[in-house]
């Protein structure tokens, strides 16, 4: 019988400044334990926020291991570890008044005649994680996450809204000119958006900015290579390892060791984080694995994550497409006619069919290789097995943070890409 024990403790503070007023201040401190037992190839799981001894918790989980199955799990190479991400400026050492002062200054940079609503949200949290299992693996980490979300609504002929965020696995030191720059950008974009036209529709050339490109690769490929979908028999790339899935310029990675929002030192199964090559020169190299999927499919574990005390499942971390060598102008020239789309409110994918949808926050018409009039938010769709064949990649990799939802669990991730040119279905008027 295999068992493991997780102890998760979190502290968080969220402050909202809505139309200039401090509201919805939330302060949380919680902890709990989660236990897994693997017996006769069948999993039993128990979690609780109440005080409980490890022996008792394992016994509760074992009671749930009532069936017979084929699950197995892999051994872990690095058997112990400790990691504390010490922020340069611990948010706990900054007074709440100081945090509110910064938010008020950012909010001022958002204001304009056409802005009818503003929201600035400050977020800080710390995750303290302890893990041990029946094979002797023991790890500990403490990672803070800090950030700010800046949103506004503008009124012209229609109401429009736009949002930007900065979120990092770090402390209060991440705030500098950057938060004022994004506030300025939100204001400027909204000034254009209220006059912007409806986007066009149909299959067309789309130049994506790094933020949209990141969400694109997350939806287009990231989910399909999560090996739990492969075990379920619900991934279109299940039989594509070693095969060409993209053109030769395409390299795709998932790297939890980068200090972007999806950072973690160990996954929720106690496995030391490491960079995974998903696509190399257009060839599918590996899936993302948990200890179970790696044992069943002969891969490397390290990608199992959980929200809070939930059962860990295969997840992305910081997922990105490697840079190409085209300049932005060259991408526009290659596109010739189509759209340039910027930013994203996220997307969704069905790994079984390969169809995915992702949303852009605004954009511009591209006419004769040049940027023309501004267009409103629109979504795009495509299919995993087709979309990377004609992709062209630019220079300048950038990451955008966000939260990814799967099976009811949200985890912090970052998606990265250089500017790129794809052919996708745009759902415009």
């Amino acid at each position, binding site marked *: 019988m295999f068992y493991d024990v997780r102890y998760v403790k979190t502290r968080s503070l969220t402050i909202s400044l809505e139309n200039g007023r401090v509201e919805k201040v939330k302060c*949380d401190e919680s902890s709990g334990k989660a236990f897994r037992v693997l017996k006769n190839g069948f999993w039993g799981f128990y*979690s609780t926020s109440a005080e409980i001894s490890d022996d008792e918790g394992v016994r509760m989980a074992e009671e749930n291991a009532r069936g017979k199955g084929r699950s197995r799990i892999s051994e872990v190479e690095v058997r112990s570890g400790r990691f504390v991400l010490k922020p340069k400026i611990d948010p706990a050492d900054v007074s709440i008044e100081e945090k509110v002062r910064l938010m008020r200054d950012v909010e001022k940079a958002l204001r304009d005649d056409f802005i009818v609503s503003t929201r600035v949200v400050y977020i800080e949290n710390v995750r303290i994680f302890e893990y041990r299992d029946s094979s002797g693996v023991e790890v500990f980490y403490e990672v803070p996450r800090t950030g700010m979300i800046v949103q506004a609504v503008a009124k012209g002929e229609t109401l429009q809204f736009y949002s930007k965020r900065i979120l990092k696995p770090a402390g209060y030191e991440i705030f500098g000119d950057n938060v004022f720059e994004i506030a300025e950008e939100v204001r400027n974009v909204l000034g254009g958006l209220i006059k912007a036209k409806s986007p066009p529709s149909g299959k067309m050339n789309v130049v994506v900015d790094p933020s949209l490109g990141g969400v694109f690769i997350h939806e287009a490929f990231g989910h399909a290579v999560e090996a*739990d979908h492969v075990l379920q028999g619900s991934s279109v790339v299940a039989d594509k390892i070693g095969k060409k899935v993209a053109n030769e310029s395409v390299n795709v990675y998932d790297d939890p060791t980068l200090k972007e929002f999806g950072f973690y030192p160990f996954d929720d199964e106690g496995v030391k984080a490491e960079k995974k090559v998903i696509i190399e020169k257009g060839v599918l190299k590996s899936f993302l694995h948990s200890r179970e999927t790696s044992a069943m499919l002969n891969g490397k574990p390290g990608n199992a994550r959980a929200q809070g005390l939930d059962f860990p499942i295969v997840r992305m971390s910081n997922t990105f497409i490697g840079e190409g060598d085209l300049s932005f102008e060259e991408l526009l020239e290659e596109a010739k006619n189509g759209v340039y789309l910027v930013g994203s409110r996220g997307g969704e994918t069905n790994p079984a069919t390969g169809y995915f949808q992702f949303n852009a926050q605004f954009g511009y018409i591209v006419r004769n290789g040049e940027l023309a009039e501004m267009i409103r938010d629109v979504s795009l769709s495509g299919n995993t097995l087709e979309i990377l064949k004609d992709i062209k990649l630019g220079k300048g990799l950038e990451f955008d943070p966000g939260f990814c939802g799967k099976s009811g669990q949200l985890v912090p991730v970052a998606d990265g890409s250089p500017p790129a040119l794809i052919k996708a279905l745009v759902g415009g008027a």
Partner: protein
Amino acid sequence: MNEIIRHLDRNADAWEIYCERSKSKSISIEKGEIKLIESSEDVDYAVRVIVNGTVGFATSSNLSIDVCERAIKIAKISEEKLKELPEGKKAEVEGIYDAKVEKIDSDWLLESAEVLINSAREVGNVNPAQGYVEASIDEIKLINSCGADLEEKLTFCEAFLECVIEDSSAFEFDQSRTSKLDLEFVGRRSAELALESLKAEKIEKGRYDIVLSPIAIHELLSNALYPAFFAENVAKGRSPLTELGRQYIGEITIVDDGAIPYGLMSFSFDDEGVNPKETIVFEGGVLKSYITDFRHALEIGIEPTGNGLRGEDLYPVTSPTNVVLEFDDVSDDIEDGAIVVHALIGAHTSNPVSGDFSLECMNAFFVKNGDRKAVKSAMIYGNVYELLRNVEVFGKDVRQIENTITPSVRFNDVVVSC
């Protein structure tokens, strides 16, 4: 407990302690096999205080003087104004607790999962790729210094299955306040939809009549429409629904009612202690009223509507309860000549402020003279207010999906991009 109440009485002008004790048990299916049984027991506390007219809030898995102190400290910098908390009122609501759910054990879950898998396999050679059956019991306690002393138990069960065959996939689910789940329906329907969606073909880009299933209606409206009728969003300039009495949509009536017997979102008091009631949001397409939490009801000067609900962070905000959609023209046969859409991909990316959406269809069929042709990769595009002005007819297949109670709805003239 008494010591904590004494502490709050001494240091706050008003206070509230909310406690949620949840127990859940579930079973998971992977590729037609049962894989895992989970159970969890969680207790969470939220303390809200009013000090000198402003609100402080803190949460923890333990109730202690410390969590109260954190809430009090926050009240000092907060500008969230509140004079009082609800006095606490309960309504009699039938069908929100089923004692049988308390007895659900591993054997019941194992049997239910078998029924799900077998019902799917009886339809054809599909892979019941992933699914679950879950039962949960929530025990809510709410006390405050304004007189509320309320408690209740709520039960909830759900079964979900996604079936896959070749490059086709479909899901179905059933949710209930009782232990009665239609497992055969979930298994059979997800398998049928996956099979029917095989060999999908492209259609021409253009304007079509479309029929959205209750699942698709919920996915779209809960993201693109519902937030626009929260009083808070209207007051803060984030909603186009600024004029009561104005006709914004076609002649549809939309009612929020947290007291519907057996409603998935029904309760005898909301998470702030306000009793649930019927609120007519749109009557024949005319905006009649907003829904609200307690704080924004006071601030805006309207009656509380019993929509102060708490999500995972336990902070009470406005949220719909059971939203019922009604239309005069109802028919059994609404699919002919239309594209019928079972579910949407990416509905959360809809724009809640403008109402614009562009979404990928999942399990879509073009229906003509009884013939159903699976449609490959199509996006529907539009604005939710325009869409709701183009309702032709409602079907009779009424069901509740999360917080939406609706039949399938046929819309005219929707832009389909492919």
